[in-house]
């Protein structure tokens, strides 16, 4: 049972503000991913929770108790470092048992629990190996076993998968998810990879330049980013600027570069509002100019400027008047460069950014 609360955390290094007024609550058993660009303050946040860095201001509570006065070895928080940090002069068994030895657990119990922990990470039989004799994935699992054996209240992971190759990363992702669920341990996971965050976490905290810019479920962040910058970070680079020209209680019509696009009306929308909206590359539908099945509304004309073939998909760069769009389509339907097409923007996939002069409106 561990609830973590971060309250208005600030960390300044000389004149650099690494973490700025950062608040977050993780309920017991919650799995939150901190997602953000390199240098945005993710590691610094974890280090403050672990007690390796002292906040300039703010509070950290575990189950309602402030932990700021506690030294790292009294916080009972497990942290997995990016580079595993196995002790090179100790074999696997000694590494895993280290935490228990430090806290004076009896030898027999240490042996017992080490065996158990190594079983959990599927490394039974590797007791006598030294870290240098293990692969990256194995080292990572030893590091996980070494941390979990001490039964930490809270698990912090700092980009634990970034040093692994793609296939191993996949494996470790599902391994970590399963482990976290089975132990029901409150977890804060740091990454700069949005796919990783989406796959692993119940909730994602998006961090830009030391600040939390959006917090929500992976789906919310993926489909309903608060700002164009967040949309861009999440891989939705399409931005369309326009003005609300017509409003009914249900339908809101927007003029985008001469095209009339409909979206669902948001409560406080008014005619004349300037808005910005986006659509994810995979949500656009393409039709050839002479296709009879083309929907009648929310369709714009475009020309394909460039097509890039990936494995199962093609990326198209499209020009439509003053609008530049990027789309991803299954590669079975192919359009050549320079060909004219019709693009359907399904209303349910259009997302209007909330904001000062971008009137809140959705779907």
């Amino acid at each position, binding site marked *: 049972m561990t609830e973590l609360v971060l309250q208005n955390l600030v960390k300044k290094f000389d004149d650099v503000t690494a973490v700025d007024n950062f608040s977050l609550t993780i309920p017991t058993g919650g799995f939150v991913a901190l997602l953000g660009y390199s240098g945005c303050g993710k590691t610094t946040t974890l280090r403050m929770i672990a007690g*390796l860095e002292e906040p300039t201001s703010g509070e950290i509570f575990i189950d309602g108790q402030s932990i700021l006065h506690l030294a790292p070895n009294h916080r009972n928080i497990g942290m997995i470092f990016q580079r595993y*940090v196995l002790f090179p002069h100790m074999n696997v068994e000694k590494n895993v048992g280290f*935490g228990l030895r430090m806290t004076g657990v009896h030898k027999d119990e240490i042996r017992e629990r080490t065996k158990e922990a190594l079983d959990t990470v599927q490394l039974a039989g590797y007791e006598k190996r030294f870290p240098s004799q293990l692969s990256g994935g194995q080292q990572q699992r030893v590091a996980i076993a070494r941390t979990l054996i001490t039964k930490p209240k809270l698990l912090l992971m700092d980009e634990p998968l970034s040093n692994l190759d793609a296939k191993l990363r996949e494996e470790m992702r599902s391994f970590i998810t399963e482990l976290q669920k089975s132990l029901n341990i409150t977890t804060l996971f740091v990454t700069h990879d949005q796919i990783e965050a989406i796959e692993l976490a119940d909730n994602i905290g998006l961090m830009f330049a030391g600040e939390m810019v959006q917090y929500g479920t992976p789906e919310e962040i993926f489909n309903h980013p608060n700002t164009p910058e967040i949309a861009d970070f999440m891989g939705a680079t399409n931005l369309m600027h326009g003005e609300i020209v017509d409003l009914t209680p249900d339908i809101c019509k927007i003029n985008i570069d001469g095209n009339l696009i409909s979206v669902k009306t948001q409560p406080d929308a008014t005619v004349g509002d300037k808005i910005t909206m986006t659509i994810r590359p995979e949500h656009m539908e393409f039709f050839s100019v002479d296709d009879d099945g083309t929907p009648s509304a929310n369709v714009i004309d475009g020309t394909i400027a460039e097509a890039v073939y990936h494995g199962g998909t093609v990326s198209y760069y499209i020009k439509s008047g003053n609008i530049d769009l990027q789309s991803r389509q299954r590669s079975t339907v192919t359009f050549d460069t320079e060909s004219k097409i019709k693009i359907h923007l399904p209303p349910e996939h259009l997302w209007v950014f909330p904001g000062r002069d971008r009137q809140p409106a959705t779907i």
Partner: protein
Amino acid sequence: MTITKNQRKKQASSGNRLSPYQRYYLIFIGIAVVVPFVPVIIRAFSFSWFWPSILPTKWWWEARENAWQPLGWDYIFSGPSHVGEAIINTVFIAIVVTIVCTAISLPAARVIAWEKFRGKSAVEFFLLTPLIVADIAIGLGILITFLQLGLTGGYVGIILAHLIPTTPYMVRVLTSVFQGLSRDYEEQARLLGATPLKTLWFITMPMILPGIMAGGLFAFLISTNIFLLTFFVGQGNIVTLPTMLFAKVIGGSSLDTIGAEVALILSLPGLILLIITERFLKEEIFAKGFGG
């Protein structure tokens, strides 16, 4: 593992062939190191050896049979020579100096390597000053202070004095070791429940042991060779091998047999230590010690 060992040997013998230039250079260095020792060694085993004869006219073992008092090595190993006492003093002082020096240098090196603080470069420079300032200046300086404090003529004063030239070396060696060591290890240990002291003992010390060995070897060798500071601070009360040797050669124009013998003995502690640490040297720990 057995294969790799053999392979490594093969590689070493075939891969590192020297060019003729390199070979001559090595031979030259070897000669430069060994030749000055030759007269000392001959002298140590001679009874009478006069210009211009190349070898002694009478060796020590020829003279000792019908001598009426202990000669040469017999004298060295007899009580009145005080050589035994000097060896014990020298080694004892060197051991204490090495330990204390390590204890002082460890935290200093750790901070210099890992922390940013104002005046850091000044501290680093300050640490080097004992290597820059002349021995005799330091010696006279300490003598005046130590006389006031009543630290002259005893072990404590000598050990304190020996820390002055040894600590800069130790700090430098350990600083470069700490620079090559990620802080993550200590932090990880703390997060696993280790106190700072346990972290130092179980994590930091074992990981920097090679550096401690290299630095310790230096400190030990430097200490066993210090004459001036020991002489000033010891006030002749405490005899070490260097003070004994200097007493032997100070007035005379030439090295007498006893002096040569003390000189040879003086080289022993270092030699023995080198052999003990040779295993570590082989494992390129020395290279690591200077890994900066």
